[in-house]
């Protein structure tokens, strides 16, 4: 063990011993550090191998991508029969929106990203200009999709379906529920007993019943509460229900954010002579909303997933289209392919949203240091 003698304070920075760092060291520490750890690694590797072998085979290599029926599929190969999807891609995406008018949906969808960009990315250049567009986007999209103005044909809501329907219900519900949720949260914290009680009752009711019962109410009962003769489209009724439902959950998330604000903030605002609305607008809400962002994003993702429930009351979201496809005797029994396809769509969009949420949370946490 002869080591050179260095003067105190001049010992050089040596590299760590081989086998403790680098790829080899990492593998040793993380995967094989003990007997139980090593067994776990081996089991995991075997599991992954079987999964990939079985699934990739069924998904791609043995799959049939176009055929006339399930029986034909099985003659060609015995993997997944994706023909049930490929023959109906249009329906899955646009529902029964007339083919010639589908460009209107495409434009609305693409411009939606432009409209949301300045809201979601606080550092975007030319943000002020884009925000103007975000402001008019709701009207712009409504006119495009609905029609009836500027020479565009009016399309009946009963023709809406597929992923387009999911996005319409989801985005509209989300955007409308945020302001309502904020008001509910403020109401729940209010000193006024009446306001507080009403807010609590509304929130607890919405959170206590399953969404499906609210959708049943929307489809069968909501008309009774309107003056005789009014006739809202079922789509509008459903969007209203989703909005109220989501607003209640958002209210609870924001309430958590409000409660996390240190009391000293309110005391400082009082000392400056601010009244309730000024305090709320400049002190409470900005901080509460920032803290609540992960919770709000989670609620949004949940709402987006919940839009699938509309299939139970007869709307033709992607699950509805899928069921209609499966009812056709040609494609009977291909439920796995159909539902997996829809599942993949949701996985990609929800995963992207939760990644964005994590990014935003990180950014806001490091921005204000």
């Amino acid at each position, binding site marked *: 063990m002869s080591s050179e003698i260095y003067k105190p304070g001049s010992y050089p920075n040596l590299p760590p011993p081989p086998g403790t760092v680098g790829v080899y060291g990492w593998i040793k520490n993380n995967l094989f550090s003990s007997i139980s750890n090593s067994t776990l690694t081996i089991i995991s590797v075997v599991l992954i191998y079987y999964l990939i072998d079985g699934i990739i085979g069924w998904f791609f290599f043995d799959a049939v991508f176009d055929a006339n029926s399930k029986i034909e599929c099985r003659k060609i190969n015995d993997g997944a029969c994706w023909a049930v999807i490929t023959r109906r891609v249009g329906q899955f995406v646009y529902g029964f929106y007339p083919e010639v008018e589908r460009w209107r949906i495409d434009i609305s969808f693409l411009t939606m990203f432009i409209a949301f960009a300045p809201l979601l990315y606080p550092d975007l250049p030319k943000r002020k200009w884009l925000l103007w567009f975000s402001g008019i986007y709701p009207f712009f999209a409504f006119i495009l999709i609905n029609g009836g103005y500027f020479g565009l044909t009016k399309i009946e809501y009963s023709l809406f379906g597929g992923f387009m329907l999911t996005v319409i219900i989801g985005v509209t519900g989300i955007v409308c529920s945020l302001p309502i949720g904020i008001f509910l949260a403020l109401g729940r914290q209010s000193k*006024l007993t009446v306001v507080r009680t009403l807010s609590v009752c509304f929130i607890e009711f919405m959170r206590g019943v399953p969404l499906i019962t609210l959708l049943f109410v929307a489809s069968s009962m909501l008309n009774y509460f309107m003056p005789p003769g009014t006739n809202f489209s079922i789509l509008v009724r459903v969007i209203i229900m989703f909005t109220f439902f989501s607003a209640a959950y958002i209210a609870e998330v924001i309430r958590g954010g409000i409660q996390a604000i240190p009391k000293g903030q309110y005391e400082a605002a009082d000392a400056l002579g601010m009244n309730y609305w000024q305090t709320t607008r400049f002190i409470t809400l900005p901080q509460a909303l920032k803290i609540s962002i992960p919770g709000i994003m989670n609620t949004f993702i949940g709402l987006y997933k919940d839009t699938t429930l509309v299939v139970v009351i007869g709307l033709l979201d992607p699950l509805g289209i899928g069921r209609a496809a499966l009812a056709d005797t040609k494609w009977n029994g291909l*439920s796995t392919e159909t539902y997996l396809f829809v599942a993949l769509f949701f996985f990609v969009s929800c995963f992207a949203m939760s990644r964005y949420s994590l990014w935003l949370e990180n950014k806001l946490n490091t921005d204000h240091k």
Partner: protein
Amino acid sequence: MTFLHNIWHNEKSREIIIQIFVLLCIGWFLSWLISNVDANFKALGKDISFEFLFIPAGYDINQYLIDYNNRDSHLRAGIVGLLNTGLVAVFGIILATILGVTLGIIRLSKNWLASRIAYWYIEFTRNVPILLHILLWHGIIINTLPHSKNAINIADISFLSNRGFYIPKPLTENGIELVYLLLVIGIIFSVLFFKHAKKKQDLTGLQLPVFWINLSVIISLPVIGFFVSGLPISLEIPVLKGFNFKGGMHMSPELAALTFALGIYTAAFIAEIVRAGILAVDKGQREAAESIGLKPSKVMKLVILPQARRVIIPPLTSQYLNLTKNSSLAIAIGYMDLVATLGGISLNQTGREMETMVIVMLIYLSVSLSISAFMNWYNNKVKLVGR
């Protein structure tokens, strides 16, 4: 004028005025709603009454815990539905908890590969809507399992087909009383032994393997009694008659699919809750516990878990509640839960949308509010004592 001015600028009276105003608005709104309902009902010749509950339902339910036939009342159908909801909720909660806790622990493992596998499994499961899980599993069970004629045969006493899972039904005969008695004795012994072992440890410091001793006693005593009484349990084995199995116990594909889907879906959320709870305990706690010489298992049991429990239980009960509410999607695959009976077929047959929905929503609401009350009580009980 000054009177009004004074009222408005006095904080207390202003609050009262605002509240009265709000109440008036709400009152007006409610009366408008009610008058609409009244007008609509009159025009349609409907009324509000709950008498429909007592007329015969006229439909069959294929999975039931209590006896039911189609001549029973809607009320009874609703009760069967409620019990079915409870059944799938209990099964689902058990599956979700076991799977979720295991996944959460794997997620925390130092083994990068296992942790990553758990991560991706959780992400795939969480980001797919629950209804899709239910439909997927239902489809797989119906379409992949063989017909009853070619059912998968497990030891000639259990069968798996696309009509469901059939297992033998245990029938008790004479002599079963001894087995029950010994089971009860075993449980009483365990409780007493647990107390005794604790006292002994306090007195002498000796630690006995209480868990294993209790487990062996509870299992072995009834088993001994079983053999001594001459095997007083016989099995009614399901037998294929025509297209279906008769006899034995039956788990419908709907119940299986629903339980599976709910269990798997909720487990993903429970895993994250467990993981967050354990990570929430300060790293220094583990270090302090280890540096006074506690073994890793004791560190978990005495220091980490009691603190993690506080953080885990509230969101955990929230997930249980979500699972119960999600079970209402049973209607999508034809499982007759509360919503599918009262809010589904009963509603369609009697046309009583208001009454049935009110009953269904009230039931869910009361379950929900009691769980909230429990959570509040629990949170207050385990609050860490501070200054």
